[in-house]
């Protein structure tokens, strides 16, 4: 179910549920209080009337001096004809009349009239007012009243010490109507509050959830390939704002890494295009007609040079890939770095002679632990660069010295230097000081050197005085 998976809906449902319970509790209490109030008022009236009846039933005061009896002891003629002679005391109640001064309490003409009944438990006699709904007003017999009707009446009964039971009742239909109205009002009011509450809650939840929706929408676009998307952070201070900030910086790093990777791939492809063009044009041109052996030899040599260049590029790319993946296994052996430098200088001597560049090496032997072949690659690379980017008749000064537990190697040339804005980029892959390619250099040498030095736990830096000199400094742990 989609709705139940949505945080927004789940929050809304829980919130609505709690809201309904609170409102229902409140409404029920209010209803009960109102009901208690109304019924309490009626009960008061009923009790008052029970008191009046009880008073009226009290045994008469002693006969007065004239021997006159109280009028209510005397049954009206013709009523209760089978009654026995009155007894004293207690005198059987033969007939009951409301005292006139109390009659208005049971006025049947009042819209909400009270009724009564009096039962003599011994004599099984019954008196009741005409409007008593429990009795048929014609036959004076008790009738069975159905429950629903009974519910609209309220009665209280009181057993007097004289074994007479008084019940007083009245219709509570108006009160019930009022209560129903109150209940309706409460329900209506509660409904309105609930609607407003739910709407407010929906608004709040939506507001709270919106950053999440933004985040998810952005993430969807990013996973669809548009890495330039960022989450729009409205409130940077809130928890979600912070999360969005963290995600944005992650996206930025992802985009940068992706762009770097793309650039690298594109550069690598670009580097391969030129040697492939050479091979294609050379071979296609050679094959257009029959040629002499020297011409074919020329073509084959050009193809070989192109292939060598591609091999060098592929080796460099593989080396970088291994360093990137941390798969390059370095030998850890003690060796004399000074001796390695000497070998490297010998190796680049022909190139130096070709450019008329002199190489000088300063410093005594210095043993370090590491991969001598890989470090020789670094030294050769630095020397080759120093020769190629030197001025004619320039110098390359190599210096090796121990410094605070580190072996510090500096290679300085007397070339044109590197512009300050380009300095941070020299270790980037495929970066070249001048944009054109020269077949001796694929732009990966310094990137590989950096990877090798860092794999040894060392650092490599460059400093340059523009127009005068460039110095590479390699620091390696001893």
């Amino acid at each position, binding site marked *: 179910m989609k709705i139940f998976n949505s945080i927004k809906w789940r929050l809304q449902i829980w919130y609505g549920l709690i809201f309904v319970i609170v409102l229902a509790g409140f409404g029920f209490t209010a209803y009960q209080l109102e009901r208690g109030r109304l019924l309490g008022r009626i009960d008061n009236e009923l009790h008052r009337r029970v008191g009046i009846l009880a008073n009226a039933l009290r045994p008469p005061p002693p006969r007065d001096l004239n021997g006159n009896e109280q009028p209510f002891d005397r049954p009206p003629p013709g009523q209760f004809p089978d009654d026995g002679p009155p007894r004293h005391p207690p005198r059987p109640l033969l007939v009951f009349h409301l005292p006139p001064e109390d009659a208005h309490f049971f006025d049947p003409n009042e819209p909400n009239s009270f009724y009564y009944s009096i039962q003599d438990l011994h004599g099984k006699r019954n008196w009741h007012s005409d409007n008593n709904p429990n009795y048929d007003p014609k036959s004076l017999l008790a009738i069975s009243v159905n429950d629903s009707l009974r519910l609209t009446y309220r009665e209280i009964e009181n057993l007097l010490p004289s074994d007479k039971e008084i019940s007083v009742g009245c219709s509570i239909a108006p009160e019930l109507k009022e209560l129903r109205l109150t209940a309706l009002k409460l329900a209506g009011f509660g409904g309105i509050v609930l609607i407003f509450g739910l709407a407010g809650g929906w608004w709040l939840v939506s507001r709270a959830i919106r950053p999440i929706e933004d985040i998810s929408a952005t993430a969807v676009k990013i996973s669809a390939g548009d890495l330039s998307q960022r989450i729009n952070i409205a409130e940077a201070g809130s928890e979600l704002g912070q999360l969005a900030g963290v995600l944005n910086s992650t996206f930025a790093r992802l985009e940068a890494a992706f762009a770097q990777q793309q650039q690298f791939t594109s550069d690598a492809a*670009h580097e391969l295009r030129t040697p492939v063009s050479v091979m*294609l044009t050379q071979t296609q041109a050679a094959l*257009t007609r029959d040629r002499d052996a020297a011409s074919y030899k020329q073509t084959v040599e050009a193809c070989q040079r192109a292939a060598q260049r591609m091999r060098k590029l592929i080796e460099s790319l593989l080396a970088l890939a291994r360093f990137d993946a941390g798969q390059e296994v370095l030998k850890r052996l003690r060796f004399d770095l000074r001796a390695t430098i000497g070998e490297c200088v010998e190796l680049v001597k022909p190139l130096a002679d070709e450019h008329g560049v002199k190489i000088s090496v300063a410093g005594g032997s210095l043993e370090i632990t590491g991969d001598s072949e890989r470090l020789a690659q670094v030294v050769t690379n630095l020397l080759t660069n120093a020769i190629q980017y030197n001025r004619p008749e320039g110098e390359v000064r190599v210096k090796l010295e121990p410094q605070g537990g580190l072996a510090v190697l500096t290679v300085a040339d007397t070339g044109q230097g590197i512009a300050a804005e380009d300095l941070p980029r020299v270790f980037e892959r495929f970066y070249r000081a001048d944009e054109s*390619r020269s077949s001796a250099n694929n732009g990966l040498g310094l990137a590989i050197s950096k990877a090798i030095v860092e794999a040894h736990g060392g650092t490599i830096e460059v400093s340059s005085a523009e127009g005068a000199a460039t110095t590479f400094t390699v620091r390696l742990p001893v």
Partner: protein
Amino acid sequence: MRILIVEDEPDLLASLARALREEGYAVDTAADGEDGFFKAESYDYDAVVLDVMLPKLDGWEILRRVRKAKRTPVLMLTARDQTRDRVKGLDTGADDYLVKPFDLPELFARLRALIRRSADKTTNRIEIGEVLIDTAARHVLLRDKPVELTAREYALVEFLALHRGEVVTRTQFYEHLFDENESSLSNLLDVHVSNVRKKLGAEFITTRRGHGYCIEG
């Protein structure tokens, strides 16, 4: 037809120059941007093949500068095949664009098309009396029979045909048919003209004494 190739990869430059010479073009070469710009500005080439990534002065810059003064057709060679680069090249004023690595026959075809367009010709066939010149196949028919011409002779015929009705001066011939290594003092041109007349008829090329040669319109 004289073509300038500006390319810094020596093996590529050499093979392109050789292949285009074999096609009968006069070919000049430049290995860096400065030299390339100097040559492109100094001569009226029939087409320039220009690499984008060059030392000293890149291809875009050369193109921009050359376009200020000349309408020489330029074919850009580049290792970048992104649309952005192609659009940039064409917007800067390149006439065509070829991505490395390319096939030689395609380069030849594009160069022929460039030269033909710059001479305001829309077809590969030029008919002059009984002579039919097919610039795509690079051959000449006389009364529907193929005529054997050397590459240089063919170039001379094609050049005159493309400038039909105009007098082509010796200087123009040397600028367009011979490259920088050949001396304009030689009588090479007269030898070629004489050979063409032998093969296509003496009246095919008219001599305007003191001016040059011409194919009458």
